[in-house]
């Protein structure tokens, strides 16, 4: 009981601190939401004082003391009402997030899971067939691809497969004429549009999992219980999976938890390059548009999901590792 209280206490404290940080960070940025809006307007010509006043009135730019704003903010969070976006005024933040989240969850989420699963399996294989091409290819290849700048890989793929070869669409999550719905055509269209961004993220993130799993696995393979299993004539597959991989995967789960929690943050660079309407793109716009409410909502979402994902991974850890169970 004490343990749970303690854990819950730290969880709550971290959450509170993250929420507070989310409040402070945007406000630490120089310039106000109105300044950001005016900066955008002024690209079409000089902006007058009158326009500024109208913009400020429109945005309802935060007034009142920081404390007052903070109290309001906490109240908003408790009532799960995140207010109205500045950068996309007068869209409500919840609507914007709700619109973007599914794309990100599906694209980044699936890719993250796929990358973890494939990477881990390749890592197991690499460690098991150590010193052969089945080791060299995923390890060296994976880590080489990992070192590519994300956006650069995206650009190259976009350019060659999208613009030059015309194999894939170059923009967005579905065709311009598609009215997003849940029919087969939309799904195919969406998958077609997600192919390039997904590929980019997959190939740039795979290496990390391969390497992590391979190293953990090699370490586990040297452990006595694996040698003992071999000495008992247990077949290779069983040894590799039930004895070595099963134990080696544990340290990688923490990383997976972080990655999974980070999914809702989307992938700013990839979404930016492919014009993918996910949270990453939204967040980028929020940051450059000094959109406090939107930023706060997204940050909150990210922190909460990282925390929750970690909690889930802890639980999973408990299931996979009997030692932590009691």
């Amino acid at each position, binding site marked *: 009981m004490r343990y749970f209280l303690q854990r819950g206490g730290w969880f709550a404290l971290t959450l509170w601190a993250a929420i507070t940080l989310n409040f402070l960070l945007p406000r630490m940025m120089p310039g106000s939401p109105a300044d950001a809006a005016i900066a955008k307007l002024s690209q079409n010509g000089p902006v007058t004082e009158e326009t500024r006043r109208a913009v400020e009135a429109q945005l309802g730019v935060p007034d009142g003391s920081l404390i007052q704003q903070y109290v309001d903010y906490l109240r908003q969070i408790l009532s799960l009402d995140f207010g109205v976006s500045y950068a996309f005024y007068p869209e409500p933040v919840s609507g914007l997030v709700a619109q973007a989240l599914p794309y990100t969850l599906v694209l980044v989420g699936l890719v993250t899971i796929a990358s973890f699963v494939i990477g881990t399996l390749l890592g197991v294989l690499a460690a098991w067939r150590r010193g052969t091409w089945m080791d060299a290819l995923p390890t060296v290849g994976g880590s080489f691809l990992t070192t590519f700048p994300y956006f650069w890989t995206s650009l190259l793929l976009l350019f060659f497969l999208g613009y030059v070869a015309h194999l894939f669409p170059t923009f967005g999550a579905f065709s311009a004429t598609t009215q997003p719905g849940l029919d087969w055509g939309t799904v195919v269209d969406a998958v077609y549009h997600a192919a390039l961004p997904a590929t980019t993220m997959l190939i740039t993130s795979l290496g990390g999992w391969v390497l992590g799993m391979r190293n953990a696995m090699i370490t586990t393979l040297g452990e006595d*219980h694996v040698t003992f299993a071999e000495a*008992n004539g247990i077949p290779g597959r069983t040894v590799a999976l039930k004895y070595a991989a099963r134990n080696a995967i544990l340290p990688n789960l923490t990383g997976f938890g972080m990655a999974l929690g980070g999914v809702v943050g989307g992938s700013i660079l990839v979404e930016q390059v492919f014009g993918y309407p996910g949270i990453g793109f939204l967040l980028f716009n929020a940051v450059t548009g000094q959109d406090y409410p939107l930023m706060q909502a997204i940050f909150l979402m990210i922190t909460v999901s990282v925390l929750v994902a970690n909690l889930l991974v802890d639980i999973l850890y408990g299931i996979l*590792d009997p030692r932590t169970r009691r």
Partner: protein
Amino acid sequence: MTGTETTTGPRDTPGGEAPLLSVRDLSVVYEPVGATPTRAVKDVSFDVGRGEFLGLVGESGSGKSTLGFAITALARPPARIEGGRILFGDVDIASMDHEQLRTQRQGGFAMVLQAGMNTLNPVRTIRQHFGDIFAAHRHVAPARREARAAELVRRVSLGPEVLDRYPFELSGGMRQRVTIALALSLEPQLMVFDEPTTALDVLVQHAVMDTIRALQAEEGFTAILISHDLGVVLESAHRVLVMREGRIVEDAPSADILHRPQHEYTRMLLSHFADPRAEHVSLPGIEAPEPAADGPDGPDAPAADGPDGPDAPAADGPDAPAADAAAADAPAADGPGRRRPGAGLELRVEGVTKSFAPPRRRAAGVLAVDDVSFTLAPGGATALVGQSGSGKSTLAKMITGVEKPTAGTIHLGSTSIGPLRGRALRELRRTVQMVFQDPYSALNPLSTVEYTLTRALANLTDLRGPALRRRMLELLETVGLTPVEQYAAKLPHQLSGGQRQRVVIARALAADPQVIIADEPVSMLDVSLRAGVLALLRDLRERTGMSLLYITHDLLSARLITDDILVLHEGRVVEQGPTAQVMRHPRDEYTIRLLEAIPDPARVHGA
């Protein structure tokens, strides 16, 4: 080269049939990437007959495990079999392919690995372990598997309930038994036990060895028992191979080894055996105080006398003569102001209790030390013995101020140790010092001997500059590490275990402490090195008059260097008195069991 000669050519085995295992000119080399190769096994040849119980002894690093792995076809890179043949029955195991090798594990050869604690998969239950083996070989019909597993664990004296446990839920001894049961489930013809009891507690060790002996007698499999403890091996094995630096230096029936050792190394090993219950106990280089000695102070105990019989091997040059050197140099080491015996402070432990919070939720708290009282007189030497977990180290920690007692007081002279914090605690280090159990981990691998000693001196004494360095060299001389300049510049990995332990002792001596607490200072050392370190400790105590609290589970060494003894069992003192008297006439049942558990080859093979 008597040993190697005797092993060439096939040898008649007890049953007179063809040998089960025949090893010919086997060499194994370790070739780690980026390091120099090590030849761990060199041209080894021997045979093992069916049903034989063969012992393999040798000091640490002599290649025992490597040989064990090689003959069970478990050698893995960086190990490589460089030459020779291993014939199992008529088959050369090198000719078997992967699958053949795997299938023959059932009914073939099995190995019980060293450090049995870690040989079970932490995330699988014992039942699943059995299940995996049955599934792999299908030698037990599915319907019978359950019963067979229960039977196997019963054979190693465990209840069927362990089948549903995870390895971490079992004690070390239970895990070792489970490992043996798993190996047994393969119904092997040959079983190699690699130090099956080394990591275990004395009493448990005794019980596990009994189990192995009984099993071998019942099942009739061929056993190879690897151990560095000649006592254990001689108690069980029909025949013993003595290994040294990768070679087999002696191969003879146990009785011959005991009574007519051929190789000087074997003789040396034997010389380190003694029965602590005997009236006179001595090891090469050290002799126990006479039981009649009148009082704990015993400054009149005879100093180490004369040459020490078979000497320690040359590899550890400075170790063996150290006691003598130290004794001879005693006056020189005695600087100005050195205390004389009896001048120090008395350590009084009164009703000390220590309980720990439960390690996990819902578990019960641990009462590690329970109402312990004793007094360590200035210049006295007291042994604290007891099996693992009996609270010895916890008591030591409280005396050194690392842990605070839950109840009771500890006084050093007039200072109460319990309430000391921060600065005052650092002050305490000038009077109470500690010698650690494991010399391999007690020294920072990256610091030179000079640095280690210098830091202690700089922190704990007022010496600075050249005086400090002089004192540092003096300390090295005190512990017998000469030439001192040369040793000062060494890093721990350039020293042998015994030499390292001397450095650890030198560091403890830096502040001229009045009390030294030595927590199992020799348990990690090879027998050949133990006596030297023990002699040094005793000698230092006599020369400097400091008092010694000697913590051990090894009764022989307690007998050798202490005057008084406390026997600890589950945190309580069960017996207390002059060492020799307690050993010779134990009253408490627990003390008796401890004494019984000491391997005694003579018991089996007759004195």
